[in-house]
């Protein structure tokens, strides 16, 4: 059952270590001069932290060290070292890494998954952040009987994107996620291609964002969602015909109700050609669609795409206003196959802080609101809800599905897997100093395409494994059974006096 898609098998994990000289680690190991280079630590450590050295072992991979949690183990190097030469401490730089939503632990655990494809040791928190609400206060209620009868191999993580029952193709993706739009110009071509290639390998999709369809993407047409956004940049009949899914971007969560602005010096001749604009002159993507002032106008838009490409599914990306439930119903009746709800805590190259923090509601509220309303309207089974904007981990993904989404759309997590540290300076100077969101040639050269592709693949394979674990603990055979199951999750702030049967994870 795991593989409902003809001839598809998941790619393999290949180790893809940090592209910088030292990975950033939670723990820092020091070896004192007392070391006699006996090599015991090298032999003991199952995490392969040490490498042989001339004078003393080299601490080559201390990011793989599990830290103080290791003291329970027989092989704890600090205790076993005959010369007592090894010390493990916290890395002082860790303190200023990350933020409330992506604390240092979450960044590190994502890097761990991207490097190894494995779930990190629990000493590194990989499930929740430190935001104090929403996902970070929601837990799964795993039933007390620990041994579910369902074996991992029987569990399906596939979802169907066309649930409308119309004559257009069924599109099944083997994992309940696809990758969101990041335009050509906002990220490097290596980043863009890494995401597209990873999406193709995982049997899912990656969106182009607004800004055109570079020819490098064409070999992957079947795994591309092309975006039609308010500026209509790079939108051509030809590009709409190439793909299986076309996305209308009405709004985006990071700057809901605000337009986009591409600075003049980012409009290089290539970007300009793709967007049919003049090099060097700033481009405004307005808000809203100036051709849409009613749900009828919206239907006209959807019909236009359907007419242009008779096999395409139509996705509508909207933000999360007070009446987000009405917006979703409107999209459905206009003929959309997918409605993507983009919550307010998602990422983008640059947005006013005031918008990111204050405008529109978090996705954890919006999804259940929409799900319930569509159920009441009797149309929930006929449309796919995709959640985005603030989904950081496999646990977030599973929680939002339990809150009513069919699947998720991701962006920031991909960038973190490529060793983004969320310094929030995507736009400053020559662009991203780590070579992810930049068009600077030298900085773009910091990343290799094979490496980038593999890091993203590794991370999502690890996510899939966690999702299977969760489904298995809940006794579910398919991720589709998890949709809208408010009964299997609980919010820690609202547990008072309630009888929970099971383990909160």
């Amino acid at each position, binding site marked *: 059952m795991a593989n409902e898609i003809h001839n598809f098998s998941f790619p393999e994990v290949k180790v893809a270590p940090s592209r*910088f000289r030292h990975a950033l680690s939670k723990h820092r190991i020091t070896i004192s001069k007392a070391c006699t280079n006996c090599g015991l630590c090298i032999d003991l450590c199952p995490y392969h932290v040490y490498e042989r050295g001339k004078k003393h072992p080299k601490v080559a991979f201390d990011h793989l060290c599990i830290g103080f949690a290791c003291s329970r183990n027989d092989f704890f190097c600090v205790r076993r070292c005959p010369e007592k030469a090894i010390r493990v401490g916290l890395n002082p730089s860790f*303190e200023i890494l990350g933020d409330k*939503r992506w604390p240092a632990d979450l960044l590190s655990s994502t890097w761990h998954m991207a490097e190894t494809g494995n779930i990190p040791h629990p000493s590194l928190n990989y499930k929740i952040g430190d935001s104090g*609400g929403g996902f970070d206060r929601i837990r799964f209620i795993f039933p007390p009987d620990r041994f579910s009868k369902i074996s991992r191999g029987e569990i399906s993580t596939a979802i169907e994107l066309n649930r409308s029952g119309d004559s257009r193709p069924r599109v099944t993706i083997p994992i309940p996620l696809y990758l969101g739009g990041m335009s050509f110009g906002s990220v490097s071509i290596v980043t863009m291609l890494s995401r597209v290639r990873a999406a193709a390998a995982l049997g899912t999709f990656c969106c182009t964002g607004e800004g055109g369809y570079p020819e490098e993407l064409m070999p992957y047409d079947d795994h591309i969602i092309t975006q039609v956004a308010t500026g209509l940049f790079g939108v051509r009949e030809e590009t709409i015909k190439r793909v299986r899914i076309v996305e209308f971007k*009405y709004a985006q969560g990071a700057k809901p109700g605000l337009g986009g602005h591409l600075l003049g010096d980012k409009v290089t001749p290539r970007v300009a050609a793709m967007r049919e604009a003049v090099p060097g002159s700033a481009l405004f993507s307005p808000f809203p669609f100036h051709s849409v*002032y009613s749900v009828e106008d919206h239907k006209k838009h959807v019909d236009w795409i359907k007419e242009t490409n008779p096999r395409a599914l139509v996705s509508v990306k909207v933000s999360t206003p007070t009446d987000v439930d009405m917006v979703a119903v409107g999209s459905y009746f206009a003929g959309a196959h997918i409605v993507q709800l983009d919550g307010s*805590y998602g990422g983008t190259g640059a947005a006013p802080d005031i918008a990111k923090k204050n405008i529109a509601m978090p996705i954890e*509220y919006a999804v259940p609101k929409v799900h319930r309303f569509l159920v009441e309207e009797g149309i929930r089974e006929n449309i796919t809800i995709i959640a985005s904007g603030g989904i950081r981990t496999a646990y977030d993904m599973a929680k939002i599905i339990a809150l009513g989404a069919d699947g998720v759309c991701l962006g920031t997590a991909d960038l973190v897997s490529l060793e983004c540290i969320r310094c929030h300076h995507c736009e400053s100077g020559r662009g991203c100093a780590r070579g992810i969101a930049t068009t600077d040639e030298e900085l773009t050269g910091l990343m290799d395409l094979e490496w980038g592709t593999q890091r993203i693949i590794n991370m999502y394979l690890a996510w899939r494994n966690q999702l299977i674990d969760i489904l298995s603990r809940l006794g579910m055979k398919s991720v589709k059974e998890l949709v809208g199951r408010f009964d299997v999750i609980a919010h820690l702030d609202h*547990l008072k006096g309630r009888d929970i049967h099971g383990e909160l994870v």
Partner: protein
Amino acid sequence: MPLKYHIYSAPVPNRFPKITKSGVIAWEEGCLKCARCVKKDCVYKVYEKRDLDEKQMLDSLDSVCMDCFRCVQGCPNRLIQKGMNPTYKTLGDRYWTPEIISDLWFQAETGRIPVSGAGYGGPFSGIGFDAMWTDMSEIVRPTRDGIHGREYISTTVDLGRKLMMLDFDATGEMISTPPPLVEIPLPVIFDLLPWSPPKERINRSIFKAAKVLGTFLIVRASDLEPDMMSDASNIILYLDRPLESIDKNLIGNLRMIEIPYSEDALPLQRKIKAINPSVVTVIRITMDPSSSTRIIDLVKAGAEVVHLCADEHGLEQAKEPLFIKDRMKEIHLQLVEKGVRDQITLLAGGGIAMAEHMAKLIICGADALTIDIPLLVAMECRVCRRCKSGIECPVELDKVDPSWGSERIRNLIAGWHNQLLEILGAMGIREVRRLRGEMGRAMFFEDLEREIFAPMGKRS
């Protein structure tokens, strides 16, 4: 169409080194003296810009470093670390957080709105103003102005009492006399400061900024400098001494006067009006649980503007105080229910620390608001409150050049004004007057939690 209100801003440098969040720590012991040090490769050229010798290892707190961690990860012997700046952590207090203070500094220095990449990194929600979100409009809305746009979003508000109807005599002549109204181009007035070092130069900075921006500052009669009196059109005189002791000519020149709330507030208002009928009087009251009943009485007795004051953390005066936004909601709704809300103008202040607080307090029912501490922070105040105990100000606020100070405040308000436009634009609202009391266009934490999260975990 009237000329668009726009605040021209230009960078105004700091007088003191900025307190940044983090610093670079480098050790010398173990340095391999690489032929090409990672410090040379800094993308932001931190080491070059600061004229640091890369061979010299030192701790540095700097504002050029962008926390990319390239040097931390690149140094072969891992001798470079990033560390939190301990002074940064101790800025302000739990309400006036280091993040808020440095954001205000940034705006006052640059005149720009804070923009960043890679999503929002803050908490899910928080106390006070952080427990609400504002609405956006997906498709059906007027086209937006935003900062660069085409159509005008007005931030003008009127201060004063409004007539609910006009009376005419048999010949069609209007017999009702409309009370005086004062119009300000943005819904912000500069309030009395809760504390400050000796304030002569500070007040002059605020005075100049109010003039440039076309708004008002509130000044105690006892603090008024003689030269300000001759140019009083942007001053709201706060009567902290008897009316009789104030120069009648000055009263005649003023457009607004503020008086403290007391039993005699309205008789005093009438006395002021007898001297200058075109002045608008503001009654200043401390926000507390009885505010709404007091305001309803004041409206009936003929009050024009009421100024509600919470404390510097936005709390009313009570045993279990409500936050300003929550009390404001209650007051607004009570007045609406009594059918008197439109007759009176409500100003409110206390704890207004960020641009979004303007929009949120207006949504909760204020017509306009007053700010205090941000004016000091614009001039590099660190909210250490040492001045309260008479200790010298670490950033010498008592010595600021009023031209510099006013330009810093202008920059801050330019940033705030643009951010207000962003919020209004996203909501599809064309003027800030229509934002007042629009609670249906906001989302409140407590409502959403109750509706969405409370029912979870129950087997149906």
